[in-house]
């Protein structure tokens, strides 16, 4: 169990699912109750939260909102292929070490043991996100966001498994660094490959789905202030109808927000074939999908979205 250091200024942990929901809503993140539940649980149980889902459904956003709401530091590790220890955990600052060696030589110090303990000290270490997340923080344990883990390779995943099980890192020249309080860990994946079961077993798993129409409408109204009620309704209906089509890549919530913003920038009052055709690139990101939206399909979806009922 993590007991949050309740220092002044840092917000306390929510004490129930409802409190969690409220906390997220107060920061403009309109979560499904199920997402609030697993987030609450992951805080209470001190378990990493593993969020999987299509791109643009708000997986990364929740880590940002959570860190802001709890007044914790957000440490983000963006994964990519070939991510290794030196860019994820720590690296020695070799240039500075060499200078230190030369200085020692110039000063006439020849004690080798002394020299090696000097140059492998904390100040020659460049700390990367995973190590930063293990360090004590006055505001309480930070929120560690491990973003798009599926882009890293299996070797990194195996390493991560080790870190997530005991929140400590062993550095050969330096010793073991252990977190006094484990950080709040949120891992996201877009499922461009399957993450190994062993890692998922350590986490609470949640599939983040596209929101239902009312929730999406609320999100648009929250995130795009000043958009007219009529337009926001049409936008959401249109996007919801698109998701029912057989597209290669359905638009996520982020795309809905982008599109609504684009339309209000263009001072559109309501959806017309002309306006939709011009701004479709904010919603659909594959040429094949855009081609399919020309002509009849567009008319049909548009009619669905703009019919008054």
């Amino acid at each position, binding site marked *: *169990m993590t*007991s949050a250091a309740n220092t002044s200024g840092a917000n306390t942990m929510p004490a*129930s*699912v409802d409190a969690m929901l409220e906390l997220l809503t107060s920061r403009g993140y309109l979560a499904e*109750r*199920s997402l609030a*539940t*697993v987030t*609450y*649980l992951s805080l*209470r*149980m001190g*378990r990493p939260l593993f969020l*999987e889902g299509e791109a643009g459904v708000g997986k990364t956003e929740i880590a940002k909102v959570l860190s802001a709401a709890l007044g914790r530091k957000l440490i983000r590790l963006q994964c990519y*292929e*070939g991510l*290794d220890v030196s860019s994820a955990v720590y*690296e*020695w600052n*070799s240039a500075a*070490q*060499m200078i230190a*060696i*030369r200085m*020692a*030589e110039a000063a006439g110090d*020849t004690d*080798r043991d002394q*020299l*090696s303990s000097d*140059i492998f000290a904390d100040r020659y270490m460049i700390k990367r996100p995973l190590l930063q997340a293990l360090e004590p923080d006055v505001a309480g344990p930070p929120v560690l966001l491990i973003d798009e883990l*599926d*882009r890293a*390779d299996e*070797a990194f995943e195996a390493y991560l498994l080790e870190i997530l099980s005991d929140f400590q890192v062993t550095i050969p*020249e330096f010793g073991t660094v252990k977190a006094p309080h484990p950080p709040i860990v949120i891992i996201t994946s877009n*499922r*461009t*490959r*399957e993450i190994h*079961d062993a890692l*998922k*077993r350590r986490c*609470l*798993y*949640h*599939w983040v789905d596209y929101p239902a129409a009312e929730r999406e409408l609320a999100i648009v109204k929250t995130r795009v202030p000043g958009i007219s009620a009529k337009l926001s309704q049409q936008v959401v209906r249109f996007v919801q109808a698109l998701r029912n089509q*057989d597209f*290669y890549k359905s638009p996520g919530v982020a795309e809905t927000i982008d599109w609504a913003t684009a339309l209000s920038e263009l001072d559109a009052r309501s959806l017309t074939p002309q306006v939709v055709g011009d701004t479709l690139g904010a919603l659909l990101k594959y040429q*094949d999908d855009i081609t399919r939206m020309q002509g009849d399909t567009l008319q049909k979806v548009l009619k669905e979205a703009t019919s008054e009922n």
Partner: protein
Amino acid sequence: MAINHLAPEQTEQFADNIVGFARALRSAGMPVGPGAVIDAMSALQVIDIGNRADVFTTLEAIFVKRHEHALIFRQAFNLFFRASEEWKHMLDSVPLPEQAKKKPQAGARRVQEAMSQPRMTETPQHQEQDLRLSVSDKEILQKKDFAQMSAAEITEALRAVERMRLPQAELLTRRHRPDPRGLRLDLRRTLRASLRTGGDIIDIHRLGRIEKPAPIVALLDISGSMNEYTRLFLHFLHAIGDARKRVSVFLFGTRLTNVTRALRQRDPDEALASCSASVEDWAGGTRISASLHNFNKLWARRVLSQGAIVLLISDGLEREADSRLAFEMDRLHRSCRRLIWLNPLLRFGGFEAKAQGIKMMLPHVDEFRPVHNLSSIQELITTLSRPLPPHHRSLIRSAA
């Protein structure tokens, strides 16, 4: 801290329920370990268990670790927490995942029914006498079409296939390891070594890039016309899957089934049995374009992301060949590193791509190869072991 708002006898009742529920999930084929049960207990201590939806989400977050299990979980939950005594005989109507039906015998029988000719079920003793093949027999076996083999020959061929190992066909990864001829300087090791000499750098340590076999994704046609070959290919895929971890296998006939996990089992016969248990449509018709569409939509992004080579094993005899087929082939081709089409029909010397489907698919493959006997499988292995050329579009036609 956790507030235990249950009376002790209630807790006991609850613990029994959770254990029973976990057992039910396990029998429905979900991997639920004792650790998850303990987690569930402690999670239920901190939420209001009067709220059914919250209990559902809580248990789901703990027991469901794969999105495809969510449906099973939902049904199990609704059944279990409505009336536990109904559970036992209701369990039959839950659409269980196929791994759940762990009865190798039944599966094996289905394999036999689906795939084998009567001659495949000969007694083992009888086979053993036939297996003493002379050298010249072996040569014949190398060239003999799978479709014309006797049971004994098939057994021998299977053994040959099982012995096949892919040498490492390599992709450069972005990881490094110590390598004296590497291109990158390993400053850290260089420095540590220099300390032995009081800070003078004598040896420069270098790093080279690690090479790793490219992942392979096999799409295997199991329609009626491919019946003779399916089993051998599955054996082949099982054999190479041992050596390289990253082999995904999909079977398609009228629908697409992912059998990667089923094939992971060490014993080839068990692996094949669980494969066959998970497939609904052995030896039915083919709908290549619909299957490819499903693959592109549901799986391509999940299994092709790391520079995968795709093996499409099919005779290309598609009845409903239309422009969709060309479109889906094109998409598949553009989303993988190399697309190799293996076609047993190429065994006929005078084979020409007459069928509409084949004509549509041909422009979108990097290589078009026969695969109907042992030597062609060997050739395929040679191909897969070669360093990968950059994406070229030439069409290699090799006659058997």
